[in-house]
């Protein structure tokens, strides 16, 4: 009876131990070269609001995560508070801590709602990870027959 109890309780207890696998990045983003009639705040980059126009990618590769974090930690605040037009929202899951980083296509960086100095290196790395320049609009995905002749 004791043995049976050990067989049941041990796996349960082992499952309660949280492994260090909660380091990952979630990218929500619009495609390149999109114009909008007004600057988009960070909350707009959501499937709830922009539906199919939002693309999603999850990165849990340790090497990519570490490289991202090494650049991410270099952000500095800025006194300039003018301007917001976001295209890429990144949810940074770093163990117990979760940050939100919002980036414009070329300018504007907001970390947890606070404006930061732009970091071209990180912006380019993010674009590389998500293959930003090759992101196809939802309309083109829905209607490949309209574009096949031009490809």
């Amino acid at each position, binding site marked *: 009876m004791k043995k049976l109890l050990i067989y049941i309780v041990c796996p349960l207890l082992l499952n309660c131990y949280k492994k260090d696998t909660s380091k990952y990045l979630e990218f929500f983003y619009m495609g390149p*070269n999109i*114009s909008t*009639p007004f600057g988009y705040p960070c909350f707009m980059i959501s499937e709830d609001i922009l539906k199919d126009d939002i693309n999603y990618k999850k990165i849990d590769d340790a090497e990519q995560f570490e490289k991202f974090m090494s650049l991410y930690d270099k952000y500095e605040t800025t006194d300039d508070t003018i301007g917001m037009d976001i295209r890429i929202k990144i949810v940074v899951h770093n163990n117990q801590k979760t940050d939100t980083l919002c980036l414009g296509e*070329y300018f504007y960086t907001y970390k947890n709602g606070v404006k930061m100095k732009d970091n071209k290196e990180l912006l380019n790395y993010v674009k590389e990870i998500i293959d930003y320049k090759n992101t196809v609009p939802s*309309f*083109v995905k829905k209607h490949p027959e309209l574009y096949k002749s*031009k490809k």
Partner: protein
Amino acid sequence: MNKKIYYLFIFIFSFSVLSAQEKLSKEEKARREKNIQAGNPFAQFGYKAKIATLSKGKYLEFHDLDSIVTIGTVRWHVYKNEIVGRIVQDSINPDAQPIGDRVGRWMSPDPLSEEFSSWSPYTMSFNNPIQFVDPDGRAPDDWRINYVDKQGNSQQFVFNGGATALPDNQFVRDFVGAYNYNVGNGGGDSMKAIAENPNITVDVQQGEFTTQDNSLSKDYNVVNWNPNLGIETTSGNILSPATLLEHEAGHALAGALAPGTKLARVESSDKQYRDKEEKRVTIGIEQKTARANGEIGMVGTTRTDHKGLPVVTKSPTSNTVDRPKTYNTLNTLHSKGFFFPGFGVEDTEKYRR
């Protein structure tokens, strides 16, 4: 005995066949030969070629032998190589007959026929010249309005700015209504330029928000338009959905004509308007169309930044805010902690009944 009957039978058969053949007079033979040789292209060199005919010269089968032929509205003398007259086409009388060889005639298969494999290479505008326009003989273009019909099927309606029968679809009607409203009021320059340029195709579809999207390699050029959504600017002006459509048409036109130049402007930051492209469109065609539509005064500006508060309007061409719908939409966003830059709760509260 049997052999004799056999030869007799052959003789009677041959005689009946030969006697059944038409006996032609000398004159008739000459006439028929003349009819046949009328199709001889080597006659002027004295060479008598074998000419294929259906009636063996009984009828004249070559009808393009006139010395004067009609080419379009021109009467042309083929031997003198000169114009000998012109025809004035009656364009007022609806019963007037087409002139000579001006009736449709294909000189070659459609060079783009491979792109339209389900269609004959000898058709034009998908056999529907009322719905589609093909001014340069290449592919249907201009504004391609994408919509879903009542059966739930995706459809396209090509609009080139002219008066035409519209499909029974509200989005198509809203788009054409916005076009006519902008252009009719003296604005809508970009929408008109796209419609009138046969080398540009811009897709438009209904979207959650109004946006514009084009590739640098000109693979696609898409405008998403919400015909119910205008914006309030930080200057206090309300811009109709029709004016916002013109705003995005301005980007679409730039993306179609010179995508590289447009990108260079997008990459150049501007403290007020985000980038040089937004500045160009906002203080240019947006302002012109808003003024033409009576949304700003004769000397006013729509805005001095790139900010805006989305508002639901009474119609696609109206800048009157539907207050209950706008309030409910914005209030729902506020309850989640969402705000648009430059606008606070007080801007929403003013739309409360």
